[in-house]
């Protein structure tokens, strides 16, 4: 006889997990803004925010409060419905991507094995790609609805950039799917179990590093991070697609970028660096302990990638627009196609296809 609370937990488990993922995504995104500035400062021999609380750790709260208190301006000439829809889509899409990511191995609760994944759909990878491309609409609608030339140019830039890099990203994901043979994210994570099997390292990165690099560059472009942050290029476009935005709607756009960064870091660690898997994980026998350790490992990898994102941002300047397009269409896409074909032949030659 399972106790009542356990039944309650079983019934509402997806909802509880979804709220947890939601909260964690927002929390990490909020603190990314803090660490962004801290890391920027440290890389530039400065101290960074240190006034709000010890070491400035309440800075995100202060920023959030400021954003809410600011005057909300909706331009008269804008399309009001779309103007509000833009940031909502941006925030919404970046938050729902977390649903298909397995954050850790299954936990065991009152004899039931519960996955640490909100929705274990068997086409998780496609879901990710699909949602990411909806994210473009948030930017595009926002830029168009502002009825401002600069916003429109920013939005056009953003959408053309995202669409061109999505091609290379899609092809590199296809390569990945050929290696793993599955579209399910939980399957991909499970296949990279441990660190070594008898033949080779299990993580996909070691099977095909080139795919990872292409995916990584595309992820930078998808999240509008430097060196691909042309959509919000202040020097040329005033503020890019969010020129007309103020108050928390602007906050949503900026925040969505950080949530995107968190999710794409999680996706990278899941696709290429084993997700929650770590070396010698078979030595831990208690499933709950394993889940705890696995989740920590997953988050450590994710945070590391967030760090790399920031590290890159504060190292290199942004590309010129033609360089960006050249890199996308003339280098990354051919490279990913070659990679795809070569991987195919390799798999065929070794008889794994």
């Amino acid at each position: 006889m399972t106790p009542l609370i356990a039944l309650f937990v079983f019934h509402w488990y997806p909802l509880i997990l979804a709220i947890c993922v939601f909260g964690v995504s927002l929390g990490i995104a909020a603190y990314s803004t803090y660490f962004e500035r801290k890391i920027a400062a440290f890389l530039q021999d400065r101290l960074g925010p240190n006034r709000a609380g010890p070491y400035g750790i309440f800075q995100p709260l202060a920023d959030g409060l400021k954003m809410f208190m600011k005057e909300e301006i909706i331009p008269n000439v804008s399309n009001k419905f779309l103007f509000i829809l833009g940031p909502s889509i941006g925030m919404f899409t970046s938050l729902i991507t977390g649903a298909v990511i397995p954050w850790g191995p299954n936990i065991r609760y009152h004899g039931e094995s519960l996955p640490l994944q909100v929705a274990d759909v068997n086409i998780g990878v496609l879901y990710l790609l699909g949602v990411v491309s909806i994210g473009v609409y948030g930017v595009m609608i926002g830029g168009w609805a502002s009825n401002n030339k600069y916003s429109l140019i920013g939005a056009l830039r953003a959408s053309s950039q995202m669409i061109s890099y999505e091609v290379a990203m899609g092809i590199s994901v296809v390569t990945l799917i050929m290696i793993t043979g599955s579209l399910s994210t939980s399957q991909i994570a499970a296949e990279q179990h441990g660190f070594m099997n008898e033949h080779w390292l299990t993580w996909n990165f070691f099977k095909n590093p080139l795919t990872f690099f292409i995916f990584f560059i595309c992820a930078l472009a998808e999240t509008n991070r430097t060196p691909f942050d042309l959509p919000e290029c202040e020097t040329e476009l005033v503020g890019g697609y969010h020129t007309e935005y103020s108050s928390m709607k602007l906050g949503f756009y900026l925040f969505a970028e950080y949530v995107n960064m968190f999710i794409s870091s999680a996706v990278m660690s899941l696709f290429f660096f084993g997700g929650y898997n770590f070396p010698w994980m078979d030595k831990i026998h208690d499933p709950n302990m394993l889940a705890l350790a696995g989740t920590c490992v997953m988050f450590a990898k994710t945070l590391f990638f967030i760090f790399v994102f920031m590290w890159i941002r504060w190292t290199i300047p942004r590309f010129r627009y033609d360089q960006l397009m050249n890199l996308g269409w003339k280098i990354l896409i051919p490279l990913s196609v070659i990679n795809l074909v070569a991987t195919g032949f390799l798999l065929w030659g070794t008889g794994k296809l």
Partner: protein
Amino acid sequence: MQALTNRSKMVSNKQMTFLERLYLVSIFKGMLITISHFLKKKATISYPEKHRPISSVYRGQHVLKRDENGAERCTACGLCAVACPAEAITMVAAERKKGEENLYREEKYAAVYEINMLRCIYCGLCEEACPKEAIFLTDRIVPTEFERGDLVYGKDILVEPMEKSKRIDVSKRQTPDVLEFKTHSEYAHNQLWDPKKSLQTKKQSH
């Protein structure tokens, strides 16, 4: 063309190779540079808690001095206001009443004395102009304010406190030359007029 110095560098327009066009190598190099700065000593000085060392002749917030007995030295002659290139000083003069001798050193004093700290350029000319050694610039930094009006300092801020222990020390800021100069009382302009003494010095100098 012959180069004038050997510092000039030949610029070439050669095409970048494929590897260079990937930018990966140079980006990686750049990232190594930035990460090497990560744990370096930070250049920031957390200002209100820590102060930069300042020059010994730093010119900061003014002080209106009192004499040994606690009387204000300023006689509202207005020479400082005339000397001030930024026209930052204004004052209203008043006559000393009977019984106020312990408050004001001279028969005329400044009832209102204001310096606009936003106009002031801290040149120190007021200090040089003052015949009574009443005004000095000190090594104190003028803090920032939220309102412009708060930066017009009146006598409540400028005049130093009466208590001996809280007097503002202005000797620290003086250069050795000035200190040397002040040891010669015959050069000082603020001695009480003493005909005999002035005759003496005149004789000496002849």
